[in-house]
């Protein structure tokens, strides 16, 4: 067996990019290196018309490379529009017709795809750890977006039975609860450093779809804080092609900003 010529960050970028199409418009928030690389990879390969609103500001930006921040002006280099947030960005985001997919990284993600970026601990007002807070997550889970989760820390502290606080609405308590509240969209996929998950169509429980090359199903089960749904044989996650790896390393992110997510 030869050592594969890619690293897990590149695998994740390629896996996430597969969930993006030419007809989509996406934006990114703070410290979102893997999504930003995935958008660029999708645009360079199978989704050339994917619209990317860099930092929720710069339309179709063409940064020379992924910079050290995904929320600063270097990211929206050569954009065709600097979208004002108040009237424009939020109107397009709320509208329902555009920006229909959104990538989310939560400090906690639970079995129904709810995410927590607010507090760790049982008492919101006296938390063990105060996390940064909702930002746009508190909106994006509720306004019809198809949510694509990523996390570089697939472990029982991140993937939990139930989030301590629902900052971002996923499938709530599963089944049709989301639908009953009139919420469209919802979580579709979780790309972690070990595996790719989706959600069971009826129960809305997180389901193991593939394990990354070199990772076993048992390792994933062990690293997950709840029982994953496992339907039959679990295939291996498709590895990035040589060309995808080359694009990521040479064209998109030569500085390796994506590895900041593994600090």
């Amino acid at each position, binding site marked *: 067996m030869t050592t594969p010529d890619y690293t897990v960050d590149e695998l994740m970028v390629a896996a996430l990019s597969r969930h993006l199409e030419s007809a989509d418009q996406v934006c990114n928030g703070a410290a979102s290196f893997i999504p930003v690389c995935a958008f660029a990879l999708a645009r360079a390969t199978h989704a050339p018309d994917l619209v990317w609103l860099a930092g929720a500001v710069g339309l179709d930006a063409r940064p020379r490379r992924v910079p050290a921040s995904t929320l600063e002006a270097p990211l929206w280099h050569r954009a065709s529009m600097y979208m004002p947030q108040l009237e424009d960005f939020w109107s397009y985001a709320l509208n329902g017709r555009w920006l229909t997919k959104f990538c989310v990284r939560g400090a906690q993600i639970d079995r129904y795809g709810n995410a927590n970026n607010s507090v760790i601990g049982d008492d919101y007002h006296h938390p063990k750890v105060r996390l940064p807070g909702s*930002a746009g997550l508190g909106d994006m889970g509720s306004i019809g977006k198809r949510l694509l989760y990523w996390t570089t820390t697939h472990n029982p502290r991140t993937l939990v039975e139930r989030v301590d606080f629902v900052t971002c609405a996923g499938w709530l308590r599963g089944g049709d609860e989301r639908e009953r509240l009139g919420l469209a969209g919802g979580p579709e996929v979780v790309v972690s450093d070990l595996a790719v998950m989706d959600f069971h169509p009826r129960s809305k429980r997180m389901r193991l779809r593939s394990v990354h090359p070199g990772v076993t199903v048992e390792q994933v089960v062990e690293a997950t804080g709840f029982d994953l749904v496992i339907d039959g044989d679990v295939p291996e996650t498709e590895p990035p092609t040589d060309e995808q790896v080359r694009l990521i390393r040479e064209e998109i992110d030569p500085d390796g900003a994506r590895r900041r997510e593994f600090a």
Partner: protein
Amino acid sequence: MSKIMSAADAAALIGDGDHVAVQSMGTQGIPMLMVRELIRQQRRDLTVTSVVAGIGIDWLSFKGVMSRFCGPIVSMERFGLCQGFRRGVQAGAINFEEYSETGILARLAAGARNLPFQITRGMIGTDIPALHPDTIRELADPFTGEIVLALRALRPDVCILHAHRGDERGNIQYGGGTIWPDVQIYPKACGRTIVTVEELITEDQTRANPQETVIPHFAVDAVVHAPSGCHPTSFFPGYVYDEAFHEEWVRVSRDPEQAIATIDRYCAADTQQQYLELIGEAALAATRNWRKLA
């Protein structure tokens, strides 16, 4: 009567206990001259609202100036959590009144337009609305019965903004980049408006480029000259954030004593000029090099 004044005089427009909306977008556009001045004048018990709070809120937290934060997020983006703020909340010294972005913007938009509330579909299904029975209520659309969330109007006492240019009447101009919501909404929602500016211009210069004016003079109370006034945060297109400064802050802010000593050292500068001398020309020159980051 000119509205140009010193940071000290502008800070006198802010009283203990006031609710202050402070421009901030993570590592971008924080009016740090005024943040330092509030620390110098030992303001107490402020409530602060920002869209994406950053290092400024961390300093106010460490120095006990702020007792409540009202907004969606406190983060220095790639530089991580604000440790002073985090400690303050965990210790119960600071209350974090958390809203989503559309939530805080709806509250401010209602305040700006003198409407009692504005609605959003954000936050439905999350645990956020239940935190705020006094400011978030479910409301049935009178036409279809559909449930949305009503956000109560917010009218902070005062706001602090940073812009490219200002004239003595108080007209404020923006000169490039995107318009953050802070600039568009705070002056309307807040009782008083303080704007620090990179450059002072004449009213004639304002009239030469009326399409760049973003706040009319009648909504502005104080204009403060503050070249590089957002340092160590960025202000497009003039300068990027000071990477070394933030990294040093991440290091020292793990220890409250070191953090406070650091803040005090910079707050000892009596003027923006003195502050910039403390930072040093080499560091400032580095922030003018966008290519380093782009």
